[in-house]
């Protein structure tokens, strides 16, 4: 267990370093950050002043070292837009993103499990076709469009739910549903195929021969064996949300999470805040990957860790 953990942590650190380097290279080499951050008609002196303030006047290699050392302290410098520590701003926004992604993934598993199992009981049957069709449709809908449609229906037409903000639990419903729908589709299909594979195994026949009800076999025997791929897949769905689609959904609903913050900092040309948000999300992704790997081992002791 311990060597396995160390190896995974090392891998996580390599990933974090990789992301850091990409962010650094992109912001320093390809585009001149000072030019991006200042308006087009800024003077030479203004540019030089900002460069000095941001520590951009050394050599590229010095800048890179400086950048990495500050990251170790979770220090990105002051946000240009808000004039205070970018790390603080990101940390204020992080709970919003985590609660949104957490709710969405819970919703996805809650719906996908029964739907996938129901579809697997009679592959090729009417219910199966219906559920697979619905899942494929669900995973084909762009989340931002779904979000806008939900706003039109539930906020504008019916006045049931608010369109944006994060003041109450009611505000969470529409963004979480938009974010969850494609995951519900993918997870349902995954649960279905895993369950079909398991149902054809010998132990299911044994259980049936013992006279157990099909519901019990499905709920206890099959689920135990299918749990691992399903949990892994759910973890990957959470990563997928965190690493991209939450940005889009947060923007549609003005949900004040890290993703929306990243978009706002692009609009305000605040590269420091953008770096801080991207790095924080990358860190979350690395931690989540680690958690999935550990869960894998805890749930199924048969897995050899190598």
């Amino acid at each position: 267990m311990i060597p396995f953990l160390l190896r995974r942590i090392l891998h996580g650190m390599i990933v974090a370093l990789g992301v850091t380097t990409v962010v650094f290279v992109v912001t320093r080499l390809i585009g001149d950050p000072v030019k991006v951050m200042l308006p087009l008609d800024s003077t030479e002196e203004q540019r030089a002043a900002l460069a000095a303030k941001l520590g951009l006047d050394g050599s590229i290699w010095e800048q890179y070292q400086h950048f990495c050392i500050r990251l170790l302290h979770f220090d990105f410098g002051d946000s240009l837009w808000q004039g205070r520590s970018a790390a603080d701003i990101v940390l204020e926004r992080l709970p919003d993103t985590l609660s949104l992604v957490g709710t969405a993934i819970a919703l996805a598993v809650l719906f996908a499990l029964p739907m996938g199992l129901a579809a697997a009981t009679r592959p090729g049957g009417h219910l199966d076709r219906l559920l697979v069709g619905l899942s494929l449709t669900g995973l084909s809908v762009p989340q931002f469009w779904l979000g806008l449609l939900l706003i039109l229906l539930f906020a504008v037409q019916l006045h049931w739910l608010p369109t944006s903000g994060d003041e109450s639990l009611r505000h969470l419903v529409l963004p979480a549903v938009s974010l969850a729908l494609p995951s519900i589709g993918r997870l349902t299909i995954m649960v279905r195929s895993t369950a079909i594979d398991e149902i054809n195994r010998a132990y299911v026949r044994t259980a049936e021969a013992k006279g157990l009800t099909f519901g019990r076999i499905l709920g206890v025997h099959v689920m135990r064996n299918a749990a691992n791929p399903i949990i892994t897949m759910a973890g990957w769905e959470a990563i997928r949300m965190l690493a991209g689609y939450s940005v889009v959904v947060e923007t549609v609903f003005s949900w004040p999470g890290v993703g929306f913050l990243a978009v706002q900092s692009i609009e305000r040309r605040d590269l420091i805040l953008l770096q801080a948000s991207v790095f924080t999300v990358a860190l979350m992704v690395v931690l989540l990957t680690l958690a999935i790997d550990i869960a894998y081992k805890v749930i199924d002791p048969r897995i050899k860790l190598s």
Partner: protein
Amino acid sequence: MNRNPLTEIAADLWRDKTGLFGLTVILLLIVLVVFGPVLAPHEPGAINLAARLKPPAWLDGGSWARPLGTDHLGRDVLSRMIIGARASLLVGASVTAIAGTFGSILGIIAGYFGRRVDSAIMRLVDTQVAFPGLLLAIIILAVVGPKLQTVIVVLCLNGWMVFARMARGIVLTVREAPYVEAAEVIGCHPIRVVWRHILPNLLAPMLTLAVLEFARVILAEAALSFLGVGVQPPDTSWGLDLATGKNYLFRAWWLVCFPGLAITVTVLGANLFANWLRIVADPHEREKLFAAAVVAEEGAAP
């Protein structure tokens, strides 16, 4: 029974109506892309402020001259959607082709040569898979400047790993097959072994994966354009039109509904087609289909 493989595939497709729907959508889109400028009733960028925010034809105030209504500048929604299909398909097709070729080649190299080469390539894949792809795409596009070519490059950067993983997995299993060993024993050049004996096994599963990735890339391009870091005006794309439509959500629902519907139908079509392709290409699934067909025929015979 007809034994011609092509007619058999066609008959198969006819039996599976969802797969047929998927293929129809894809073919229809290709027609739109090729003949778009001829088919579009108006110039997509033509501004007509006198006819701003006109609803679709079947509602009060709409006219059949502009079947799906107009946007905030009086531009024809239908024409913009027809032309907008080009951006989506161009990005989807080129990213799939480039990332697919690159990823497959690396995967084949990793699987065929094994050892150091394999672990080096797969390390890279593992590391890159763990990157927050879309977020990095957004930051790169925001800094470098959104251009169609940049969108393609950025999406390729986070799309090639799936192909490498899959190609490597298949090569690893096929490598052990007796006919591959035989070819190696009689002294075939590695390139010949890969080309003649290994590659044919890759074709069907990689094609299926490519169609699935095509669907994913279209969604990603729409999301990037929606956020304002993808396709830029005066060019059009479904995601971009959705972003402008968003500002008129409460007054002109059609600006949001139709482009979104176009994205959904396209992605759904690709997914359904891939689903059919997977079943047809997988020998195990084929057996089941065949058995089902035989049972159906025998049941109908007496």
